């Protein structure tokens, strides 16, 4: 999707919106506000959160979410649905869908190595997020899928995550481990033997045996996984998919956002819009330095305090503006939407609607 689109046309026409950015900048809330806006425009929207902190449920003012979409009731012409990604069940579903028979599925799901990678392996979460996105998009029940990425620096692993698993399957070591019996040890080269011995020594032979059993059980399913991974990747690169960068105006958050921009560029993806939350107000046109001088001149009086406070606030606001100038240039011509500091965190649909107001009507 072309970056010149404004936020309005993004929620009106995009099929997939991916919100990325560092932790604590309001990705989840922003994603929910975008989905809500789409529903208000008559679209069937679903918002997916990867954050296990239940923040989306809090934002929507509901108790909990599961791995299947829940409908959020409200007065709008479209539909609003939400779900919280459960990495393990999504992976289980994928295994069930690709297994040749029940026996193969059972062997994989019961394997301890599989349970480790499906629940806890970093990267699996990103991979399953892509998978869920694809499933929701393909299912045909939704016009728009909004997803927020994990709050980590490697959130953009999301883009290459499915490819990484298939790379893993192509890995020399994997192919070696896939040899049908332990007799392979005699046939493979010395370096590989040394590797297997080392791994056994470090983590214990039990872990290695689990891994071998998993790879054997997995045999025959690689093709299906590989094909699926290619389709997820194609969807992320599709012109109906737009990446929205969410940031806070703090210096560290801005440098993180620049990092994300670079990472996206490496994947030939441009930022469709930049949303900056929690902007301090810039009061009047006076200079902070002049306020500071007056604060000193009237130090110890109420007027001195008032000027000291104004100087602080103007310093912060000017600093935010300066931090953002470079970032805005980096993402140009993508629009930059600024959302002010709000008095309360969002935890119901009314306050979420107020965020939408700031995003779309101010």
């Amino acid at each position: 999707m072309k970056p010149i689109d404004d936020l309005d046309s993004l929620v009106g026409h995009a099929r997939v919106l991916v919100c990325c950015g560092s932790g604590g900048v309001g990705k989840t809330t922003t994603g929910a506000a975008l989905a809500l806006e789409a529903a208000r425009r008559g679209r069937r929207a679903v918002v997916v959160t990867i954050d296990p902190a239940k923040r989306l449920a809090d934002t929507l003012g509901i108790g909990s979410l599961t791995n299947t979409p829940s409908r959020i009731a409200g007065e709008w012409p479209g539909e609003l649905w939400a779900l919280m990604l459960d990495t393990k069940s999504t992976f289980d579903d994928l295994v069930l869908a690709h297994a040749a028979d029940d026996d193969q599925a059972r062997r994989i799901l019961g394997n301890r190595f599989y349970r480790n990678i499906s629940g806890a392996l970093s990267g699996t979460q990103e991979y399953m997020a892509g998978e869920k996105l694809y499933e929701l998009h393909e299912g045909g029940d939704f016009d728009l899928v909004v997803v927020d990425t994990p709050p980590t620096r490697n959130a953009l692993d999301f883009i290459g995550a499915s490819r990484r698993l298939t790379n893993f399957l192509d890995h020399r070591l994997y192919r070696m481990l896939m040899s049908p019996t332990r007799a392979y040890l005699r046939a493979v080269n010395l370096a590989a033997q040394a590797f297997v011995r080392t791994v056994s020594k470090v983590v214990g032979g039990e872990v290695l045996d689990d891994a071998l059993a998993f790879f054997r059980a997995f045999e025959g399913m690689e093709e299906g996984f590989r094909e699926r991974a290619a389709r997820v990747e194609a969807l992320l690169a599709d012109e109906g998919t737009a990446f929205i960068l969410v940031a806070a105006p703090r210096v560290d958050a801005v440098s993180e956002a620049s990092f994300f921009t670079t990472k996206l560029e490496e994947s030939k993806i441009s930022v469709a819009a930049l949303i900056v939350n929690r902007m301090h107000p810039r009061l009047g046109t006076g200079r902070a330095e002049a306020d500071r001088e007056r604060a000193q001149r009237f130090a110890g009086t109420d007027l001195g305090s008032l000027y000291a406070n104004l100087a602080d606030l103007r310093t912060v606001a000017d600093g935010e503006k300066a931090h953002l100038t470079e970032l805005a240039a980096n993402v140009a011509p993508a629009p930059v939407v600024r959302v002010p500091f709000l008095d309360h965190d969002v935890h119901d649909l009314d306050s979420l609607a107020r965020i939408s107001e700031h995003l779309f009507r101010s």
Partner: protein
Amino acid sequence: MDPGQFLRASRVIIVAGKGGVGKTTVAAALARMAAREGLSALLVQVEQASALAALFRRPQLSYVESTLAPAAGTEAEVRGRTITPDDALLEYLEDHGLRRISRRLVSTGAMDVVATAAPGIKDILILGKIKALERSSGADVVIVDAPAAGHAITFLLSVRGLLDAVRVGPINAQAREVLDMLSDPARCSVVLVTLPEETPVNELVETAFTLEDQVGVGLGPVVVNSVYPPLSGLDTPPETAAEAVGEVLTPAEVEALAGAARFRRRRQDLQRAQIARLAERLPLPQLHLPSVFAANLGPAEVDLLADTLRAEVTGLPDVVPSSPGPR
């Protein structure tokens, strides 16, 4: 509480909190506070990109220790280093007589396969290295700038997970030793950092109970960062304040001053409410650090925060409860 006693309570202090709460700044301020008490500090950076070195106006840290702030007069030195899983694994393998294979293991990506086979292994290598530093480091205090976000919990919880996955061998032994360190308040404490805002407070409370229940770590006081310092006179209308000193303000100035005062009063009220809510939900002592209204933080701001931290610690009662108590 005596600041020296506070800093000596455990050799290792892990500073944790979600992204954007100022965890790195707090770690740096703690290190400078120690240095000013005459205790040498080693700052450990676990994440690749961190503002830690920039706070001391020094080049990026590496796996080899370097000086962040030199000793001066009665002040001790602050040193810094990184611990990355790859480097920690190399060192681990070399220590276990597997030097020949170790480089290849990392360079071929085999490390990823090992990490896949036993999740948490990267974290355990980092924590294992921290445990080694607890013994071998020349520093009086080892301060760890823990990974951001939810990862701080996973990072500390990984030990338990790994004990289930890897039941024998050196990694299992390593995990046990790390757990011993984490759960011994005389050796290691965790300082959680938050902002006086709704979502960060909620997440901090959740993190505190999870760490206490599932890892059994000793929690130190909670640092509440970016608290507006008290400023009297903000309730006075600008015209009245000006009149009192014989000044006359333009309407634009009145509006800006009044708007700024209103903004700050509102934020202060919200902060107060969140601080009270935190106290109610988590019975751990709080240390408050002020908002710093500077475009970029540097050594001067870190020292200012170190001074505040010292004053706040001095104000604590002598006995710090080690448990957050019932929920």
